[in-house]
C-alpha cells in the first residue's frame, strides 16, 4: 500500500513539477483528440443519415395480368416467411391508378386515351436491415424474377450500392484519420514524458542506486502519461460538446440535417467513455515509447 501510494504521489508530483509542459501537453492532446471526436461525430451522424436512407430501399414486384387474386395472396404469404423481407404492402391495380392520378393530375388525359387501367397489381417489399446489401437484394430480386406470377421486379440498385460504398469509404477515412491523430498524440505525450524524464534524471539515478526495480522507477511516468492522455481526452470531449452546442444553436441545425430527416446527435456515453479510455491508453503508450529510449531506467 505504501508503494502504491508513493507511486501515485510521484506521478502527481511529476505533473505538478512540470506544470507548464503538462498544461501544454493536455491542451495539445485535447485538440488532437478533438480532431478524432469531430470525425467520430460526423461519422455517426452521417451514418445515421445514410441509415435513414436505407429505409428507402424497397423492392417492387409487379404481377402479370393473368394472375388471380388467390395466387397473389399465396405469393404474399410465401414472401412473408422470407428472412429478407420485413414488410409487404399490396397495391391493387386500382390503388396504383389512383396513386398515378394523385401524383400526376395533368396526365389524366393520357389515361383516358388508354381506356382501361394499364397499371399492374404489385407488392412493395421492405427489406430487413442486414439484407440491405447490394448482393443480398440482387439475390432476392433474382429469386422473385424466376416466379411465374411475376412480370417484373424493380429496386433502387444505385442507392444501395452508393450507400454501401459511401459508408465503406467513410469508415476507411475514419481509420486513417484516427491512426494519424493517434500517432500524433503518442508522439506529443512521449515528448512530454521525455522532458519529465530529463528533468528527473538525477532522481532516477538515485533510485537505481538504492535498489529500485525498473518497474518502481517507470510506474510514475507510465501513470503520468495515462493521466495526461485521459485529461486530454476529457478536454477534447468538453470542447466537442461546446462546439456541438454552438453548432446546434447558432447554425440552426436543429432537427433535420440537410433535409434528410435524421436528427443530429452527440456522442453516446459509451463512446465518450471509450474516448477517455483511448486517451489513457495512448498516454500510456507514449510513456512506454519514452521509457524504452531511456537507458538509465533499464540498467
Amino acid at each position, binding site marked *: 500500500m505504501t508503494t502504491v501510494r508513493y507511486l501515485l504521489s510521484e506521478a502527481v508530483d511529476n505533473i505538478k*513539477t512540470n506544470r507548464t509542459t503538462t498544461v501544454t501537453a493536455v491542451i495539445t492532446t485535447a485538440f488532437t483528440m478533438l480532431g478524432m471526436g469531430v470525425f467520430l461525430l460526423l461519422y455517426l451522424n452521417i451514418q445515421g443519415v445514410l441509415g435513414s436512407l436505407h429505409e428507402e430501399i424497397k423492392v417492387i414486384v409487379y404481377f402479370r395480368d393473368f394472375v388471380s387474386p388467390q395466387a397473389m395472396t399465396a405469393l404474399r404469404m410465401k414472401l412473408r416467411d422470407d428472412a429478407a423481407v420485413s414488410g409487404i404492402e399490396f397495391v391493387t391495380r386500382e390503388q396504383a391508378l389512383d396513386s398515378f392520378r394523385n401524383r400526376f393530375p395533368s396526365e389524366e388525359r393520357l389515361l383516358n386515351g388508354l381506356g382501361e387501367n394499364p397499371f399492374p397489381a404489385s407488392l412493395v417489399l421492405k427489406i430487413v436491415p442486414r439484407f440491405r446489401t447490394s448482393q443480398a437484394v440482387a439475390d432476392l430480386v433474382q429469386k422473385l424474377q424466376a416466379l411465374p406470377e411475376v412480370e417484373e421486379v424493380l429496386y433502387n440498385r444505385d442507392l444501395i450500392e452508393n450507400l454501401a460504398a459511401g459508408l465503406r469509404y467513410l469508415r476507411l477515412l475514419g481509420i486513417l484519420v484516427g491512426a494519424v491523430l493517434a500517432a500524433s498524440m503518442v508522439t506529443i505525450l512521449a515528448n512530454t514524458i521525455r522532458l519529465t524524464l530529463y528533468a528527473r534524471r538525477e532522481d532516477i539515478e*538515485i533510485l537505481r542506486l538504492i535498489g529500485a526495480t525498473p518497474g518502481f522507477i517507470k510506474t510514475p511516468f507510465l501513470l503520468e502519461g495515462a493521466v495526461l492522455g485521459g485529461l486530454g481526452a476529457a478536454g477534447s470531449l468538453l470542447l466537442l460538446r461546446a462546439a456541438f452546442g454552438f453548432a446546434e444553436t447558432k447554425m440552426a441545425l436543429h432537427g433535420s440535417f440537410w433535409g434528410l430527416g435524421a436528427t443530429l446527435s452527440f456522442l453516446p456515453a459509451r463512446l465518450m467513455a471509450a474516448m477517455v479510455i483511448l486517451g489513457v491508453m495512448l498516454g500510456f503508450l507514449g510513456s512506454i515509447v519514452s521509457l524504452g529510449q531511456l537507458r538509465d531506467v533499464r540498467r
Partner: protein
Amino acid sequence: MIEIYHVSKSFQGRQALHDVNLKIEKGEFVYLTGASGAGKTTLLRLVFRAETPDEGHILVNNRNLSELKGSAVPYLRRSIGIIFQDFRLLPRKTVFENVAITLKVVGVSEGLLRGKVFEALRLVGLDKLQKALPSTLSAGEQQRVCLARAIVNDPLILLADEPTSNLDAALSTEIMDLLKAVNLRGTTVVVATHNANLMARQNRRMIILEHGRVLESRAGEA
C-alpha cells in the same frame, strides 16, 4: 563479505584498475585510499554493480556479480548502503522522505517505515529536521541525511565515496564517528578517501591504490 579476484577495468583505453585482488571480511572497517584517479571510485562502483569488470570477478556476500542477472541488481543494491561525495539527495523531498525512499523501494509497511526512518535520523542527529528540504541544510547535515538513507535498511555493506571531501575537519570527524557507530552494529564499512588526517586519527585497515593497482594493504589495530 567482499572478494575481488584479478579485476581489471578500463574506460576508453585508460586503465582504471589493473589485476586487483582484495578480500574484505564481514564487519570490517576499511579505508580505500590513493590519489585522485587511483581507481577508488571505480572499485566501489564495481562492488555495487554500477560497472562490470573487463576481467576477473567479484563476490559480494558469496554472490558472483559477473553471474548476476540485470534483474537481480536492484536486490544486490538493497543490501548495500552507498554514501556519495555529492550527497545525491532528492531535492524536492524532505529529509524524512529522502531517508524513507530506501524503504519504500523495498515495500516496507507505513508503520515500520516511520519507526525505522526516525531511528536512522536520530542516529545521525537529524530527527528535529525531518520536514526540512535538502536545500535548507548545511553540507554536513546533507551528508548525514545521505548516511541515514544508506543505513536505514540495515545494509550488510556500507560504501562511502569521499564522504568528507565537502566537509570541514569538525564535520568530517562527526561523519567518521557515525560511520564507526554503524560499523559497530555489524555493518561492513568501506570508505574511499584521500584524507590522510582522517585515516591517521583512526587506526583501521587501509588499502592503498595507485594507478589502478593495489599498492599496499595495511592492517589496522582497531
